[in-house]
């Protein structure tokens, strides 16, 4: 009897394969579905944010506060990472460049990469690590403690209250941080080029001036504005869609940073391709 029961419960191999295939297809379907859900959700959030900013329904005091919290408080970490990145880049390139007779180009190479790529992207990645996590954690905690519902129940729109000030703050502060990162990165590179490869400060700077144009700086800062929007929106979206209490907040925070950094790398490639004439 029990043997018969076991036999009836055991599917034949063809059925097992079919079930496994269906299971795998279901999984893939769910992943695809949740991917498009995510894209749809974040696009809707971006649209509502843009519409609120367009109608000038902005909380200025809160935006200034967020500029301080998200931007100014990231200054030290941005300066340190940019300084050492500029220094290591110069360290790796200056000595070899001098050996091959290209010492006069080191200033140009260091500043070119800093202003166009490393400055905006590294600043964005560093700020994303600090700020995107903070936004997701703060808004996630507000969701699980019903504070976001409380805002809605008071007739206040969470996007206007929570998202817009953060987006604006990062749109303003990330380019400013990038300017500091560019300057300190080039200065670090200049110092190491002088100390290790005996390249004169004047030679370094004149090479930099010849290589970098105003347009490069503007394009680098434009990238920063886009990165600022990405960091704020991803952090806010992950926070506002938090479910599952404290564990959910932790999960949202981690996902926010991972998604944000991946997006920064992808978008950076796309923008470099189009801005610098890759096509």
């Amino acid at each position, binding site marked *: 009897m029990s043997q018969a029961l076991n036999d009836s419960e055991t599917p034949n191999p063809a059925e097992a394969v079919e079930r496994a295939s269906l299971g795998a297809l279901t999984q893939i379907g769910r992943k695809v579905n949740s991917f498009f859900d995510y894209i749809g959700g974040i696009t809707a959030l971006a649209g509502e944010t843009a519409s609120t900013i367009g109608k000038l329904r902005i909380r200025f005091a809160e935006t200034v506060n967020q500029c301080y919290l998200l931007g100014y408080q990231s200054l030290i970490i941005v300066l340190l990472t940019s300084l050492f990145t500029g220094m290591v880049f110069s360290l790796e390139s200056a000595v070899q460049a001098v050996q091959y007779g290209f010492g006069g180009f080191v200033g140009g190479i260091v500043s070119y990469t800093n202003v166009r790529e490393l400055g905006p992207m590294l600043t964005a990645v560093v700020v994303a690590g600090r700020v995107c996590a903070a936004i997701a954690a703060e808004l996630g905690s*507000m969701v699980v403690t019903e504070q976001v519902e409380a805002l*809605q129940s*008071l*007739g206040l*729109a969470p996007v206007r209250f929570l998202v817009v000030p953060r987006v604006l703050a990062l749109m303003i502060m990330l380019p400013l941080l990038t300017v500091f990162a560019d300057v300190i990165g080039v200065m670090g590179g200049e110092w190491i080029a002088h100390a290790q490869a005996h390249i004169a400060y004047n030679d370094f700077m004149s090479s930099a001036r010849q290589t970098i144009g105003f347009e490069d700086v503007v394009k680098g800062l434009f990238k920063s504005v886009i990165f600022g929007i990405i960091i704020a929106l991803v952090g806010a979206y992950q926070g506002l869609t938090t479910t599952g209490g404290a564990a959910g907040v932790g999960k949202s925070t981690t996902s926010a940073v991972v998604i944000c950094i991946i997006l920064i790398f992808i978008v950076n490639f796309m923008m470099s391709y189009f801005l610098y004439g890759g096509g």
Partner: protein
Amino acid sequence: MPNVIAKLDGVSLSYGDRNVLRNCSMDIYEGVITCIIGMSGAGKSTILRLLDGLRKPELGHVYVRGEDICHMRESELIEMRTKIGFAFQFAALFDSMTVGDNVALPLREHTSLTEDEIREVVIHTLDSVGLAHTYDNMPSELSGGMLKRAGFARAVVTNPDLVLYDEPTTGLDPIVTHLLTDTIKRLRQQLNATAVVISHDLQSIYMMADYVAMLFEGAIIEYGTVEDIQKSVNPIVQQFLTGSEVGPIPI
């Protein structure tokens, strides 16, 4: 019978695979305190969120002051919510603001009062719940009972005509429970507003309720005055009121 201020009409709602409300209908009468009782997880808090437009039903309609709020745009819902107060289970005060700023927030956003006038209204409202001295305190400095009262103050500061209380006495000692129950009754009289209260606390329900609705398995199975509920012959209601482990309610 008083007028109906809000109404659930054949509402169904599920969270994932779990059906929370199934074809649930009930009327909320104007100017009275209606308490909703039921087992934990029965969907009581969901009813409050439906009435405030924070959730939309999958089936059925929710009417507030005669208007179907299920098809309202967000801007219309925002306008509607300014006339509804919502006191959350854990108060949900904003951590980053003082108690005074929490209570002042809806006034700053929805009225043209000056800062001096807002301060006066906020202190008066906080005083009505016995918390005038906490104006400059942060929410983290208040006890559980004080937090709930501050939440009440924020919910009623705009003089709403419908106030929703989500488990106002849960987890509090009997004295504070009595105080909060009294506060709900007094606020209803002061505002001349309708109150809907979710509670498990039968003593406090008997003290304040004009009507009681019992929610079970997603539907209202009994609705009447306190006396009607106490005399109900429905074995589910009787088991709930007596707190017996034996009966038709699956545990």
